[in-house]
Each structure stands twice: as C-alpha cells, then as structure tokens.
C-alpha cells in the first residue's frame, strides 16, 4: 500500500508544482512507482512542467465522475519506464467541480497501485485545498524565506492541526538565496523551522536552471550537478527514510581580482 502525500503552501508562487514534479521525478529515478495528482483544476501546470501536456486525453474530473476509468485518465511518462504517471487536472471547469469524497476515492484507488501518490495542491485554502488534503496520509508544506509565505505556511500548519493526518506535516524551504540569507535580509532556515514548529524535510536553493529546465518540460532533478537538484534529491531520500545531512548553504564570495575588475567597469 502506497503513501499519499499532499504538497501544499497556502500562498501561490512558492514552487508547489515545481516541488511536486521534482520530488516525484526523484522518487521515480530511485525506482519507486509514483503517481502525481494535479488538483489545481482550471489552472493546471504540472503537465507542462513535466512536458506531458500534449499527451492528456482525459482528466481527474472525468475519472471522478466515472466517465472514464481511472487507468485511462493516467498519463504515463515514458522516460521512467513504468514508474511515473500523472493524473492531470481538468482545465475547463473550476476547483468546486470535485468534492472531498470524490478525491479521497481516487486516492484510495491509486494507493495500492503505487508506492507514492503525490498530490499537488492549488494555492489558497478553499475547496481545492480541502479536496487535496482529504485523501492524504501526510503533508509537505512548501514555503520560501519571504515573510508572506511563512505567514501563510503558519496558517496551513494551523489548518492541518485541526484535521490531523496520520503523520505530522513536514517543511520544505524553497528558493533560498544564499547571499540574502547570509546577510540577514530574510529569515534563516532554523528561524523559519523553529517559528513554524514542524519538522524540516529539506531546503532548496534558488537557481535559474530550475525555471530554464522546466520550460523544456524537464524537471531539474534530471541534472545531477545542479544545487537545486541536490536539494530535491536529498528530500526524496529523506521521504524514503534515509538520514541525509542538511545541505550547507555556500555563499559565492567574489575574488579580489573580480572585485577589482568590477570597480573599473
């Protein structure tokens, strides 16, 4: 029996979809059978990030309303053999098209077939959020070091506290800009973790390549040398139960000659 994990944040634009795609890909690379569920109905993105947007025939609403079988609605990512599937969101309706019971039924149907079912939650705390958490066994809360994202993450921690899942929620701090954190311009990792009072699952450094690769439909974890990719891989290993030390945040120091060159520009 697999585990259903919802990836949520409250605030939009902190990287829920990117995180879902990358953790899913990383788990699939490690030989686990993964299904990604996109619940951002009406504004689906996960298919685009994974480069599967041309292959969608049916979506989650079709499956929920029993118009097609669930297996038919799943889109297979051939790059990972039989390990990676996407259940795309519907694009022509809105988040109220599904109910919590319908989503839970789908999740329960997927869990025996996969090792991990990752649920990409839409921004906000309305019906879409309620649907996403309905069937999940545990939650991953994504935030960035920005105060507004942390405040929204705190709200989500509070909401999840009211409806406890099997496991306590865990935290990913995304889009860390090492120099800003080093200068104290934003909250640092331990401050955020301590404030939210939940366990840290991992950190991901902000990197231009994350956006560049996802524009080609390739999650960043496929590139093993990238620092953001390392962050996502570490997270995936921790989900599998391995003990992985937290990545050190290195600040690139400019050399003396580079500084001098800059001064004469």
């Amino acid at each position, binding site marked *: 029996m697999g585990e259903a994990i919802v990836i949520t944040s409250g605030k939009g634009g902190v990287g829920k979809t990117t995180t879902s795609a990358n953790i899913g890909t990383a788990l699939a690379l490690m030989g686990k059978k993964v299904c990604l569920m996109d619940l951002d109905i009406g504004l689906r993105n996960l298919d685009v990030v994974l480069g599967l947007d041309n292959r969608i025939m049916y979506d989650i609403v079709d499956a929920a309303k029993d118009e097609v079988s669930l297996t038919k609605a799943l889109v297979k990512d051939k790059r990972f053999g039989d390990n990676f599937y996407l259940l795309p969101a519907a694009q022509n309706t809105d988040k109220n098209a599904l109910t919590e019971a319908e989503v839970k039924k789908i999740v329960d149907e997927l869990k025996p077939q996969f090792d991990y079912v990752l649920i990409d939650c839409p921004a906000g705390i309305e019906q879409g959020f309620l649907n996403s958490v309905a069937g999940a066994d545990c939650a991953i809360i994504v935030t960035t070091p920005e105060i507004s994202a942390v*405040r*929204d993450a*705190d*709200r989500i*921690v*509070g909401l999840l*506290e009211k409806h406890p899942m099997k496991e306590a929620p865990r935290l990913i701090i995304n889009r860390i800009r090492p120099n800003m954190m080093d200068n104290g311009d934003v909250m640092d990792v331990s401050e955020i973790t301590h404030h939210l*009072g939940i366990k840290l699952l991992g950190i991901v450094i902000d990197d231009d390549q994350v956006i560049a690769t996802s524009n080609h439909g390739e999650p960043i974890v496929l590139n093993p040398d990238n620092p953001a990719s390392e962050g996502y891989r570490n997270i995936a290993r921790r989900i599998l139960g391995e003990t992985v030390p937290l990545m050190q945040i290195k600040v690139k120091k400019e050399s003396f000659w580079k500084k001098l060159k800059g001064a004469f520009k």
Partner: protein
Amino acid sequence: MKSVVLKGTQNGFEITLDDSENFETIKTEFTELLDQLVHSSDYSEKKGMKFDIITGNRALSAEQKQTLRDIVNKRDNLFINEFKADVMSNDEAYHLRDENRVTIIDQTIHNGQDLKIKGDVLFLGKIHKGGKLITNGNLFCMGNVDGIVQVGFPVDESKLAVGNFHNAQQVRIGEQIEIIEDNREKISEDLRTVVYVNGLHTISYSNLDNIKEISPKFFSRIGGI
C-alpha cells in the same frame, strides 16, 4: 402531611414546597394556602407580605416559576422575594464553573486560528502573528505573543491582561482595541506588565506593583490586603 408549608423566620416568611410531591398538587395546595393566608390574622392588606419559596432538591423550570408568580400576583400585596433551591441546572453549574476557573493553556496559536476560552486563562504557549486568543475573563500570559489577545470578550472592560505584549499586534479589552505598533515604546518587555482600561475608557499600561490601584476588586480576589 401538607406538601406546601408556610414558616416565619428571622428574615421574613418562607414557603417550603415538598420536592417529592408532583407539581399539580403543589399548585392546588399553594393556592389554598394563599387563600387561607389572606384571611388570617397575620396578614394585613396595607403592609403586604413578602416571602421566599424553598424548593429543596427540585429545580423549578422558568414556566413553573411563572405559574406560581401568577397565582401570587392575583392577590393584592403578596410578593415572591426569590426562589431558593439546593440544586441547580447543568447550564447554571457550567456557567458558574467557567466564570470562576483558571484554564491553563500551552499550545501554539497559528495564523488564522481563534482560540476562545471562558473564564480566566493562564497562557504558556505562543501566539503567532494573525493568531487570536479570546477570553471573557482575565489573561495571565507567560508565553510569547506576536498576535492578538482579547480579554473581557465581548464588552467587559474590567478585565486585565498581564504579560509581555511588547511584540503583540493588538491587545483588546472589552470593546477597546490597542494597536501595539503605534504604542510600542509605551509597553515594556516586562512579564509583569498589566494592560487595563482606565476610567476614561482608554487602554492603559502599568505594572503588577500597582494592581491595587488599577483593580481593587481583582486585588482583593487574589488575597491582597
């Protein structure tokens, strides 16, 4: 044995209702008793007569009380002072308990959460920005407050908030609201800070050392002399 008995005491008259008798019988006997009373020598129409009604181990409902009142009111110059019982309803008991207890809370109140408590609160946890702790009693706070606290909810301005509110967003007492950001320098980081509503109906700050002047009633309740 009569189930409705009139007695004279030092403090006036009492009518005791037998708590094992059914209410219909009591009603008839009560009416008879009053009829006799009006014609007795103890009664003078001018002076009138006031009495308590003792119901023992029976709590009368509001309707039953009204029935008895109606019977009494039909006669000139007779009055019921009050109903006394040895028992009370669960609602009354809970109310009494909530009014007089101190609830100890140790939890984190997250952004968007409202925690509503009845009675006084000893708070040991954390209130995050956007979190709200609301009570109709006093608040004694030893935890970190970055959010909003409201005491004396909804309109009781006699309640106090004691603790370090230097980093709070708002402190509300009854209907008075203080935005701490505008008054940050006035409110110290001392745990012994008392926030209260003064005679001019504005929120004011002081220290526990001055509690006797701020709220003599509270001071005597906690055993001050």
